[in-house]
């Protein structure tokens, strides 16, 4: 019995981590003007962020089609008996819905597929997939892996400090953070993904204070099981934060990961953040 692990490109899982754990990553679509790109496959994050500030047409994103899920599941079914498919918050994307529909379409198939809506995004989702893959290689069953994925999603936290809320607003993902829109002062909003959608957390008066606040937030969530420091364009700042917060992880390492084109489309250049999993309490 072998179980395949699938997640989507909004997990922002670095390629080496995905390969190491044998995780299949299905890309979402990025639409810029008349062209459609595959998230992280035919458009890189850097390319996206270069275009983002001056693109006249607002890039949009869409979920992988039901067909592409079926294709991937059928391919994996050749070498695996079961599949666990772990995805982005269903409140932000139709990805989870596509996966569920694909499973319904394939109902005659003998492969058992479990689809999990983590209510998370970015590395909060990515780490969930990694931990599930680790548990499976330690012998967890599909049911155990599904329970673990749900448990991990509840302990997963995605926090982002954006330079501006413009991208979130124009992408229609502002959610409950709309109260942060409109201040005449240049503030750096810090948002958290809560119940699957963007939620206003606090406001830093400038970037420097915001970076200090991100470090403090890592400490406030400690002890941690997994931690990634996230960025769209400012890798050096992310590395600086990672150096200071690595001590809160069990192995003393904080991974630095770039936010991919889809998530980045809604957060914008200059974003810094954290994707973490809190240690199980007790």
């Amino acid at each position: 019995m072998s179980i395949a692990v699938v997640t989507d490109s909004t997990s922002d899982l670095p390629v080496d981590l995905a390969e190491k754990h044998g995780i299949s990553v299905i890309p979402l679509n990025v639409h810029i003007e008349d062209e459609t790109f595959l998230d992280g496959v035919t458009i890189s994050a850097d390319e996206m962020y270069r275009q983002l500030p001056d693109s006249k047409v607002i890039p949009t994103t869409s979920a992988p089609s039901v067909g592409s899920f079926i294709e991937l599941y059928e391919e994996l079914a050749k070498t695996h008996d079961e599949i666990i498919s772990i995805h982005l918050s269903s409140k932000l994307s139709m990805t989870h819905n596509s996966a569920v529909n694909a499973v319904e379409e394939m109902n005659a198939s003998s492969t058992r597929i479990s689809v999990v809506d983590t209510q998370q995004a970015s590395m909060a989702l990515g780490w969930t997939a990694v931990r599930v893959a680790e548990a499976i290689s330690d012998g967890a069953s599909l049911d155990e892996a599904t329970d673990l994925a749900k448990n991990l999603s509840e302990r997963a936290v995605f926090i982002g400090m954006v330079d501006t809320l413009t991208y979130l607003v124009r992408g229609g993902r502002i959610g409950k953070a709309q109260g942060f829109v409109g201040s005449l002062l240049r503030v750096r909003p810090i948002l958290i993904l809560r119940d699957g959608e963007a939620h206003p957390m606090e406001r830093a008066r400038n970037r420097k204070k915001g970076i200090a606040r991100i470090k403090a937030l890592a400490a406030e969530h400690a002890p941690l099981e997994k931690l990634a420091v996230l960025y769209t364009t400012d890798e050096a700042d992310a590395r600086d934060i990672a150096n200071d917060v690595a001590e809160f992880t069990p192995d003393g390492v904080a991974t630095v990961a770039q936010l991919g084109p889809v998530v980045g489309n809604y957060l914008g250049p200059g974003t810094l953040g954290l994707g973490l999993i809190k240690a199980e309490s007790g």
Partner: protein
Amino acid sequence: MQNSTVASDSTGAILLVSMIRATANSIEINRDTINALNVFPVPDGDTGTNMMLTLRSVVDDIGDDASGTIGEVANRMARAALLGARGNSGLILAQFFKGLSESLGTTDGEPLLRGSSFAKSLRIAATNSYKAVPNPVEGTMLTVYRECAEVAEASAAKNGSFENVLSAVAASSLETVRRTPQLLPVLAEAEVVDSGGFGFAVMLDGALRALHGEEPEARVVEVPMPGGTKFSGSVKADFVDASEEIDWGYCTVFAIQAEDLDLDKIRAHMDQLGRSPIVDGTDVIAKVHVHMEDPGLALSAGLGYGQISNIEIANMDEQTAGWASARRGDATSPPVATLAAPEIAVVAVAAGDGLTNLIISTGLGATSVVEGGDTMNPSVADLLAAVNAAPSNKVILLPNNKNVVVAAQQVPDLTGKDVRVVPTRSVQTGVAALLAFNIDLSLDQNEKAMNEVAGEVGEGGVCQASRDVTIYGHEIKAGMTFATFDDDIVTVGRDPLFVLIKLIEERADGAEIVTVYTGEAVTPEQAETTTKSLEEKFSGFDIEVVHGGQPHYDYLIAVE
């Protein structure tokens, strides 16, 4: 036109076009009344406008081109109505055209505009409309469609002429409209009848006049009120006030085009995401109308089914507020920001348009401003009134002036509300404290966090002496400009900008951010010069210059 049936296909098409054009004119003439009746599902006073725009898109699409069979014309109309449908009422109206397209001209060689086919089209409109909304409500256009269908079927069974059936339906529709307040209590409360239902009756009136060749083909139709009373022309006043309290969100309308659409599935999906969704169309095109706080969610959900187009998003909270304010005849209420459900309200004191806007824009939940400052300290009564008017029983009060702190501290004992005074001694400190306000935290936690921030802000100002004065032990000559910082005189000079730079040099050492608020005496050009000079001069910390518009002080500064 007295023919009992219209035998020729092309004549039928021409007649259909002229009747639909008459319905549009009829709605246009009665539009304001229909708008004034609109209270359900959202009281935004646009039913008449939406019906008019929907009909206009049908009329524009057809133009003078009544060519083709009556069935083909009806099909074109149905498609135009669906694509051009505006608002809830527009989408339900599109069902009527769908009914026409499915029942007219379907039988070869038979008279084409017949009473029975019209009855059938009303039946289809009724059935589809009840399906298009997830929670059908009686006392609306749905009821009017259904009862019209019943009357039309009974009438067609006795005398199958189109004219006979249309006359019966036009008369009965007004009686159905008259009964809508019995079926939908909100209408009775507002002392109105259903706006969309009345709109449909108005359309039938226009169509019948066109059929009879009457001039003008459209006229003002009297609103059929219960008990034979007259419609007052507006909604009852109490109802206006109550409706403003509800959070309506955004009205989101768009079309989805794809190869194989499952309307039931899209409808169920939209019902999960938002309120009062209407989804209708065909397997290749769907029109969605849904009310929700986050319109982006509906659009992304739509993208999951196909390509989306014809997007329209309207803020119904603004519409409803505008509607309520227009009906109350008032315009001047204190500025209140109501973006989120207010768990905790903030009342802040400020003088100057810039500072007032800044506080309102920065506040979360409900933030209101009491006008006041150095020379015009608000009284305890002013503060108490603002606190009592705040839309929450938990209030944080920011006096924002050292001379107002004591007055503010009297307020908690004078009201039944739980009021916490964060003793901000200046408006610039108040703004910094406001930025620390967090809707997730309790009143205690917010009070603590805001106090902490307030304690960390250094506050200063640049001001010209209007006469010889002694301040903090320093004698200052009339006409000189001086800078204060935390109850001390820092420097005196002639040029305000020079004094400001000196002040920042002396007191912003080790700061992370300095915020400068320009006063009412500073012109936009001067403010620009100030911004440039400060940005060139200082690099160790961030500087932000914003318009404060405060009296007396050319500049106020906050050092954090």
